């Protein structure tokens, strides 16, 4: 399936991976510093019902690529290690046909359709990025790659980029392929 690359709006230093499960608080205990798979009790777990990705920037937008795969990919290559400072894989059990990446605000620009109903509603992350259901009902394995978080945190807009690969797989423990940026270090304690 094709990858989609677009800007995602960031708020409070995060964006979300969600499905039908209701929102819950999040305890940062045991957080790997990039992506958390969160259970109904708000604790990091395997096969959580929602997920959160921490960004370097507190707010703004970053370039995100999401690709939903038919089969598991190879482990990250040397080139991937070169390009991304953080690569972490977690399992998520997200229900619903619209499960996937969502921004925190998930609403953009006041909009009322005109009398003919012609005006297009604004597109949010849900409209733009492919839904995980393209790989089936789940559970999903999600590999998140990030680069430029530190520079972004220090004010370099445009530095931060993320890549997410998604495929269907049984629930497993998280795999940290690479964890080298300062953002991650400060979140792992």
């Amino acid at each position, binding site marked *: 399936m094709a990858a989609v690359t677009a800007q995602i*709006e960031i*708020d*409070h*230093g*995060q964006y*979300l991976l*969600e*499905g*039908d*499960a*209701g*929102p819950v*608080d*999040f305890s*940062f205990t045991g957080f790997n510093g990039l992506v958390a798979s969160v259970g109904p009790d708000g604790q990091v777990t395997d096969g959580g019902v929602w997920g*959160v990705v*921490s960004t370097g*920037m*507190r*707010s*703004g937008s970053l370039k995100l690529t999401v690709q939903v795969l038919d089969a598991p990919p190879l482990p990250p290559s040397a080139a991937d290690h070169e390009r991304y400072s953080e690569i972490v894989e977690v399992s998520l059990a997200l229900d*619903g*046909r*619209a*499960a996937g990446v*969502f921004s*925190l*605000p*998930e*609403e*953009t*620009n*006041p*909009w*009322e*359709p005109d009398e003919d109903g012609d005006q297009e*509603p604004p597109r949010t992350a*849900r409209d733009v990025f492919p*839904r995980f259901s393209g790989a089936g009902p789940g559970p999903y394995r999600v590999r998140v790659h990030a680069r430029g978080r530190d520079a*972004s*945190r*220090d*004010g370099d*807009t445009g530095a931060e980029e993320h890549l997410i690969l998604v495929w269907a797989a049984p629930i497993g423990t998280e795999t940290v392929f690479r964890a080298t940026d300062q953002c991650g270090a*400060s*979140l792992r304690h």
Partner: protein
Amino acid sequence: MQLKRITVPALGAVAILGTLLAPVSTAADTTPQAGGASMPATVSAAAAVPDCTELDKRLPALAKAAAEDEALAACDAPAAEEEAAAQLRTPAAKELLAAGPCATAPNKGWKFTSRGRACNPESRLINVRNVRTGRLVGQLYYLSVGMIVAKNDSLTWDQTVSMKKTGGWGRIAGTSVYGVGRCASADKCTTLFTNFPMQRMGEGRTNEGQWKMRSTIDKQGKERGKGQNRATAVFFNPGWVGVAQHDLTSASVRCDSIRNMGRGGMGAGCVLPEYWPTMTEMKQFPYISQGIRKVQRVGPHHYGRKTGANPNPLVYTSNAGIRKANNEAACPASRPRPPGQTCDEYPFASTLQGASRTQWPDWGWRWVPKNENDRQGYQIRTFYDNNRILNGDRFWVDAG
């Protein structure tokens, strides 16, 4: 003397009354008859009286047209304050109001007790007059409690009314009540059913009516729309010329398919937007709540604080450009940052009171631990989702 039925009044009287704008039923609103009563379920617009001031004006015309010497006409009016107070002390009133949010001063319109509930206690009476002499020949006192229930995860909403006769005198025996209601063409709703059949009013009985409405917004279409149930209680007595009626129109219910779509299991839903909810989720964040309390205390507008002389709520904006401008004004990324801390701002960037649109000290910023800030983002969003906060909605923040 035999009292004639409703169909008897002379054509002249009907023509005069026909100039009224009476939102009473047409054939489409026919309600089922309880127990096969022989009263007509539909009432022509011409025979209804909107209120007692109208009746007083029409008495001379009715008198001229009346075939009988003793024609009676009725109208519905709010009880005066002393009467209402006395009525609230009756056992019937205590039973109907019981405990709860509806046990408030009556006749003040819809009272919003939460984002999804409203009630409207009313203390009213029906005046019965001799059409020829204008003399008051009877009064029926009743208490009416209306309720609206909207759910944040459903596009259907409900309205109910409970009525109890609490007293009266004179020519009121045999009075019945029934209800009609529909969404108007401008309302984004449709009536699924009306269940308020004609029923006798009497001490010891409670008269019940209910309506179920569904929003007509596109369930998947990023739409928002308001609607009201234009409801009426109709009071009928075979001894009266025409009927008396009372407007029970609901408060406005707003439904949307903009928030919560495809995530969190909620989907489209409805709220009562006239209720401005209070966010209390910030109390759990020590540094953030301290910052909010300070801005609410020292800022001349005390934005978001519900108490005080001239409270100013926060106003949510869905405009991404405004959010960005607020974030950049309050927390520029270039500001040197202590390790482990991120910048927190109040009022929130997602409001029209954010830093790019407000003068210091009506806004403020501070360093707070990063994980407190990240969790705050999630809590704010949960509050917005649960309350279906849309562009322009007002809310309060209680930070302890």
